[in-house]
């Protein structure tokens, strides 16, 4: 039992610093780094503060923003979804099949929903640890994607490309995407009873009272399954966006996104132990990741080294979050 009255001033200060006693977590650290990085990049490079780079940046950040929102939904529940990257790959593979867009596009989201459903059922009904369930699903889905499209290639329907790379009223499509995704994400996470219940269920797990949410009469199992379905759907949406950008199918396109999305969520202040987090933190985290990638590109850093640096960032962020449980 935590006793706020009994905690020392030092712990309370530390709590505040790491956003432990706020439900949004510590999102302003991400904001601070974004501001600092932006200033640094504007000051040191000539190409950064151009409209072209800004629009580029948004398009680069968009898939990660989308997939990170889905990832956040399950992380708030004290879960995790390692299969999102494979779902993205599968999405591009399906979109690059021969077929009418009217068939392919619904198929993409149906497949994603089915994958999320299997994840959720394995977790709540078959008692499998979320990480193990989604880890194995990562391989199964990747295999299916590789069966459909062994190597990168093919072409996606024009409508997909236009929706992603076109412009409307002179405003580039990614701007509309950003508005829509943020609106949908906000509605789910902060603008619905479902969203509030996510925090309740995750908070119960994190504070060792996993029965509490159930005792309040919440449908915890159904909400968990729904969360994994949403996570997969967001991944499919991110895959759709990438498919539009590269205009082809690629089974390797999602490989980095499982860890990148977890990094973005964690860096945005969402606690991996559940119950604490927020949409704005997650979006800031994803933007920060894209900004760093952009900056490293402008600094001509090797792509391989960039991968290593992202790994270091992930380790730092998760090592700073405190957790009671040891293991998986």
């Amino acid at each position, binding site marked *: *039992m*935590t*006793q*706020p*009255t*009994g905690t020392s001033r030092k712990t309370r200060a530390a709590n505040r610093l790491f956003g432990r*006693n*706020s*439900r949004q977590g510590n999102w302003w650290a991400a904001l601070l780094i974004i501001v600092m990085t932006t200033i640094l990049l504007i000051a040191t490079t000539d190409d950064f503060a151009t409209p072209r780079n800004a629009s580029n940046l948004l398009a680069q950040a968009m898939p990660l923003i989308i997939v990170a929102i889905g990832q956040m939904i399950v992380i708030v529940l004290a879960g995790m979804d390692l299969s999102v990257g494979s779902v993205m790959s599968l999405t591009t593979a399906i979109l690059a099949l021969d077929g009418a867009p009217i068939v392919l596009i619904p198929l993409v989201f149906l497949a994603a929903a089915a994958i999320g459903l299997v994840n959720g059922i394995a977790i709540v009904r078959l008692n499998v640890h979320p990480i193990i369930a989604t880890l194995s699903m990562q391989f199964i889905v990747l295999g299916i994607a590789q069966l459909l499209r062994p190597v990168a290639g093919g072409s996606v329907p024009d409508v997909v490309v236009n929706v992603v790379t076109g412009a409307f009223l002179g405003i580039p499509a990614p701007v509309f995407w950003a508005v829509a995704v943020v609106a949908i994400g906000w*509605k789910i996470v902060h*603008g*619905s*009873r479902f969203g*509030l*219940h996510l*925090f*309740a269920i*995750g*908070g*119960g797990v*994190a*504070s060792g*009272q996993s029965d*509490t*949410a*159930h*005792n*309040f*009469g*919440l449908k915890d199992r159904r909400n968990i399954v729904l969360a994994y379905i949403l996570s997969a759907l967001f991944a499919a949406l991110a895959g759709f966006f990438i498919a539009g950008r590269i205009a082809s199918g690629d089974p390797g396109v999602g490989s980095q996104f499982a860890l990148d999305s977890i990094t973005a969520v964690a860096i945005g202040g969402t606690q991996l132990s559940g*119950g*604490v987090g927020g949409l704005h933190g997650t979006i800031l985290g994803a933007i920060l990741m894209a900004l760093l990638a952009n900056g490293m590109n402008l600094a001509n850093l090797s792509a391989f080294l960039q991968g290593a640096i992202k790994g270091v960032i992930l380790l730092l962020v998760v090592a700073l979050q405190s957790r009671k449980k040891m293991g998986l």
Partner: protein
Amino acid sequence: MTGVTKRFGPTIAVNDVSFEIWPGRVHALMGENGAGKSTLMKMLAGVHRPDAGQIAIAGRGVTFANPREALAAGVSTVFQELSLLPNLSIAENLFLGREPVGRMGIPDRTEMARRTTAVLAELGMDLDPNTLVANLSIADRQFVEIAHGIKADAQVLILDEPTAALNAADVQVLNSQIEKLRAAGKAIIYISHRMDEIFAICDDVTVMKDGNHVATQPLSELTPDSLIALMVGRELSDLFPDRAADVGPVRLSCKNLTLGSAATPLSFDLHAGEILGLAGLEGQGQSEIVRSLIGRHTPFGGEVAVGGQTLHLPISPERGVRFMQRLGVGFVPEDRKEEGLLLGASIAENIGIGLQAARPGFALLARVRDTAKRIMRDLDVKAQSPAMPVGALSGGNQQKVLLGRYLAADMDVLIIEEPTRGVDIGAKAEIYRLLRALAGQGKAILVLSRETVELIGLCDRLLIVHDRKLVSELAGRDATEHAILNAALTS
């Protein structure tokens, strides 16, 4: 409630209890620790299901699958233990599962905040409804729990020790609130260990003992003394062995242990050959005292001298248990299944793990089979072989195996939480004899228990703990339940 019974395994927690409560009256429920009050209330609140008997509300029989159904039937409960989610705000906790929604299905936070403020104001509280529960003080949390119960607008309201965390001024506020609810015709069940409150606000009282119903009477017919007499008065059976004739030198000395920032420091000595008990009402700090000694609770300060060393508290939570074992102090935790035994491992492995833990990891295993067999024989553990998994044993035999672990490791000092929890009466007597025999061999034993009778029968000396301080000390042979309750309740 008619003939309500609840069993947990072989133990009967509540046995054939019947009583009635009336609208517009406050009904006190009293009894010692473990009398079955909480279990009874949990059945009424839908947490547990009765094994037999019937609960009827306004003449209609009801069964509750979960607390939500009980609430829907008009029974609202404020439990002692945490039932609020720390990461949600006060308003969100109060409305969880029944949030009002506004346009487009968005939870109406302004409405929630408005109604929360109103409910809190009724309790005389001026808290921001958007504060996270994690950021509230314990007393404020308690008030929010109460607000949660009141807001449900139930016909029956159960308050389980609502004042445990409150100071006198807060208690006044709560009492006036209860008066209001009574005037509004609600039926209220009130559990408390504070005599003055009981007599100040309650109309009737039901007394329980050992899971049985003792009496239901109007309080006007009772005095505090006669009420305590109803709660106690159990025969001291011949379960208990004789006490020690004399005690040896000090084995463990605890000085100025301070449990909270404002708590009074407490000190005590534990001698070789004696059994010392920590008595008092449940949850008054007994468990924090003993857990401070092995690093599982972080006190504000103090020191403990044992095995020729003086340690400053707090000690490391990670290494405390091991360190104390090296100094000859064994800690037997209360929760046998979660903290004590390795249920899937064999009896021999469970008895031997303490011995193995004293060896370096890259040493050969100590041979423990013979030791395990000897201990099983000495303690009369009923099992086919030492290779049987502990999970398959009865509660009493499991407890013996757990104690056997510390016998095998030959500890000088034993700190035992609840030595006979969930153990049948025969095994209890055996465990008492065993502990006395150990004391006779010169071991020093510190015991805490919810069962006051057990402490009186078993211990040479009793320290009465109340509100995280030592309020009194009694010799075991002079102690009575009455004296202990009196010392605790009137401190």
